[in-house]
């Protein structure tokens, strides 16, 4: 099997910038640096290179500081040139959950990313502001560089993918020159990582925004803050936070209220048992197949049992994606299997229902309009059509976003405090027109979550408004008959009535939903 995640080979080199005294603050029975080193040991990190001052500066003046920063940057550039694998750059004064570090360092993509927090907290000198759009860091700040419309803060941890190592080396060297020439103002040794992030973003290298979620990861400057931060780690239920990080908004109301609350609890035991996400997808498909077999039986008891199996198959479908994110073993083929198996199971159930429908004049009596096979094929075509509407609409949005993202690919100068791309991306101007029913099986932008409605969002009134419109949107999606509602409709109508009633219900409800979706999207596109 190609999909055993197993123990992965250590494939990331770590550079820890322990040049500030804060890294030597004591915590427990060691320093912060020792603690961090221990944490990195638990991650797939190849080797840890600690950048530290051999001589502790006595009354360090500005010139010392400048020389130190430039030297640190050159160290990073050297590591980038020497390295053949992705490099993680971390500050030594970091107090973080191991899980938070893993979310960026153990990401299977091993691409360029920065750990950010989008909880609306205010930036401070150790946690500079950044702006995140479409899952990417598009603007980053430092003591010199300003960010317009910041919506997140940088949490210190950076990872640079193998493909971007050359870019990192160039950026770090260029920054070192600027720092030595004094073009970036009074820089401090604690912001080397921040400067590198600014450099990466402004040179047009795409940096994925890795969101912290409920976990903690902060930099500290003194002993009191360190102690408080270490205690703060224990306040968070790390297991629950890890599980929550694997959640995605459910499509529709039934999935959110009746399935997800218990389906998500299956994830940790499944991970402990060593089940892969692809295996869960396979079990889900097998359940759907069994449901189809029982539906083809046709009896009342069989219909009830088949409905239960169908709901179980759907619940497992809600588990597999979570499990993949939870175990950080997601892959393109896993996503493909999930999407294709989901629909394959559904179409098998339709066939099973049609086979099990009692026909008076033999099995072939279905050619007249309204015959069970005509209905079954109409339901199937309707489902393909609805998915195509969603996918094509999402594709058009992605196309537009790509045009917008191209603006951020243009290199921008490092020596000016504010440097905005030439124009705002089209996708943002168009607004979030999710509308009804958008691609519930595979919505790529789900990572953004519902909290992206506004930039400032701190006041209670604003928050309230967002929550209410969220509920309204969710009910609109439920009306658009997403997978959860569809599964329930099939199970209930088939158990109470027969396959004919199920197909008619799917056609009427699904057809109305498709029409409503198309009309609202056309209206939104034209305004």
């Amino acid at each position, binding site marked *: 099997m190609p*999909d055993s995640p197993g123990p992965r080979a250590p494939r990331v080199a770590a550079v820890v910038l322990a040049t500030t005294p804060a890294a030597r603050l004591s915590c427990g029975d060691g320093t912060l640096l020792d603690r961090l080193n221990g944490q990195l040991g638990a991650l797939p990190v190849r080797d840890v290179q600690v950048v530290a001052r051999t001589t502790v500066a006595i009354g360090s003046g500005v010139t010392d500081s400048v020389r130190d920063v430039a030297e640190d940057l050159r160290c990073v550039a050297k590591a980038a040139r020497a390295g053949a694998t992705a490099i993680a750059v971390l500050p030594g004064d970091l107090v973080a959950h191991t899980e938070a570090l893993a979310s960026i360092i153990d*990401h*299977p*993509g*091993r*691409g*360029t990313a920065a750990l950010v927090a989008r909880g609306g907290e205010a930036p401070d000198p150790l946690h500079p502001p950044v702006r995140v759009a479409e*899952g*990417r860091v598009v603007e980053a700040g430092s003591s010199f560089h300003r960010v317009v419309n910041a919506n997140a803060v940088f949490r210190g941890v950076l990872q640079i993918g193998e493909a971007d190592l050359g870019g990192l080396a160039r950026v770090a060297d260029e920054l070192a020159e600027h720092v030595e020439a004094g073009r970036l103002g009074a820089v401090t040794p604690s912001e080397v990582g921040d400067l590198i992030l600014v450099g990466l973003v402004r040179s047009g290298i795409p940096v*994925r925004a890795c969101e912290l979620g409920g976990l903690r990861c902060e930099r500290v400057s003194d002993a009191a803050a360190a102690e408080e931060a270490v205690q703060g780690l224990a306040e968070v239920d790390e297991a629950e936070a890890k599980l929550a990080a694997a959640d*995605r908004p*459910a*499509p529709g109301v039934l999935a959110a209220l009746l399935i997800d609350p218990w389906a998500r609890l299956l994830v940790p035991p499944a991970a402990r048992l060593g089940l892969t*996400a692809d295996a869960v997808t396979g079990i889900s498909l097998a359940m759907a197949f069994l449901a189809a077999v029982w539906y083809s039986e046709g009896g009342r008891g069989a219909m009830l049992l088949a409905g239960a199996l169908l709901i179980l198959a759907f619940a497992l*479908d*809600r588990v597999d*994606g979570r499990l*993949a*994110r939870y175990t950080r073993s*997601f*892959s*393109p*083929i*896993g*996503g*493909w299997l*999930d*999407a*294709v198996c989901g*629909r394959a199971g559904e*179409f098998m159930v339709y066939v099973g229902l049609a086979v099990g429908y009692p026909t008076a004049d033999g099995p072939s009596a*279905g*050619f007249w309009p309204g015959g069970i*096979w005509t209905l079954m*094929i*109409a339901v*199937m*075509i309707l489902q*393909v*059509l609805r*998915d*195509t*509407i969603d*996918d*094509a*609409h999402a*594709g*058009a949005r992605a*196309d537009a976003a790509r045009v917008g993202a191209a603006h951020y690919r243009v290199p921008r100068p490092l020596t000016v405090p504010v440097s905005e791309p030439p124009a705002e991306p089209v996708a943002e101007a168009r607004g979030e027109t999710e509308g009804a029913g958008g691609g*519930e*099986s*595979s919505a*790529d932008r*789900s*990572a953004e979550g519902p909290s992206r409605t506004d930039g400032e969002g701190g006041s209670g009134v604003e928050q309230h408004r967002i929550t209410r419109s969220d509920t309204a949107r969710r009910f609109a999606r439920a009306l658009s008959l997403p997978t959860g509602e569809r599964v329930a409709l099939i199970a209930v109508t088939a158990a109470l009535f027969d396959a004919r009633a199920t197909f008619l219900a799917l056609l009427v409800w699904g057809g109305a939903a498709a029409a409503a979706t*198309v009309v609202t*999207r*056309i209206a939104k*596109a*034209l305004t």
Partner: protein
Amino acid sequence: MIPVPSAFVPVYRDDGPLSRGMGMVVAGQLPPLPPALAGAFVINVLLLVGVAGTESLAVLAPVVTLLLAGPGSSHLHDGRLDWLVPPILRLTEYVFVACVGFAHEVPVPVIVLLLGAMAFHHYDLVQRIRRRVYPPPWLATFGFGWDGRMLVIALGGLAGLVTPVFVLLALYLWGLFGWESLTCWLAAPRSGLDATGSGIDD
């Protein structure tokens, strides 16, 4: 090296060589949506008057759609409503296949098998684009596209061989799409995730 498509929506059209050829003839001067709409309208009218059951006229429907919707294929699909084109083409193709199949009393499992092959390819196509495991250009050629498949079926109707054509086409498409897709996905890098992190969804 498989070329990376510059935009998603045109790939979702699933054009065959005929449609792409017509698009090249007009050199992208025709916007995609109006002709696709007209084509879908005409074919629906033809199907309503019972063309699917006839031996001779059935061939008209795909030809008309092709003449109308094909030339739009090479235009940029960046209009505000151009995302409607792929659903329109899907509806046209699937309804045509189903109507011809029913009208000629093709065994239901064969119709379902053929529609299933088409659906598999179309779901696969979306995932391919989204997860950057791009389909090779020859797949659209050998898969015939919506245009080619409709034409093959219409010609089958003309020759009075609807059921054999359905069977052959279904087997051929399942073999082609299934084999190509499976080998391509198995060869895809396990960690080939892009910077936007579109790794997995539910």
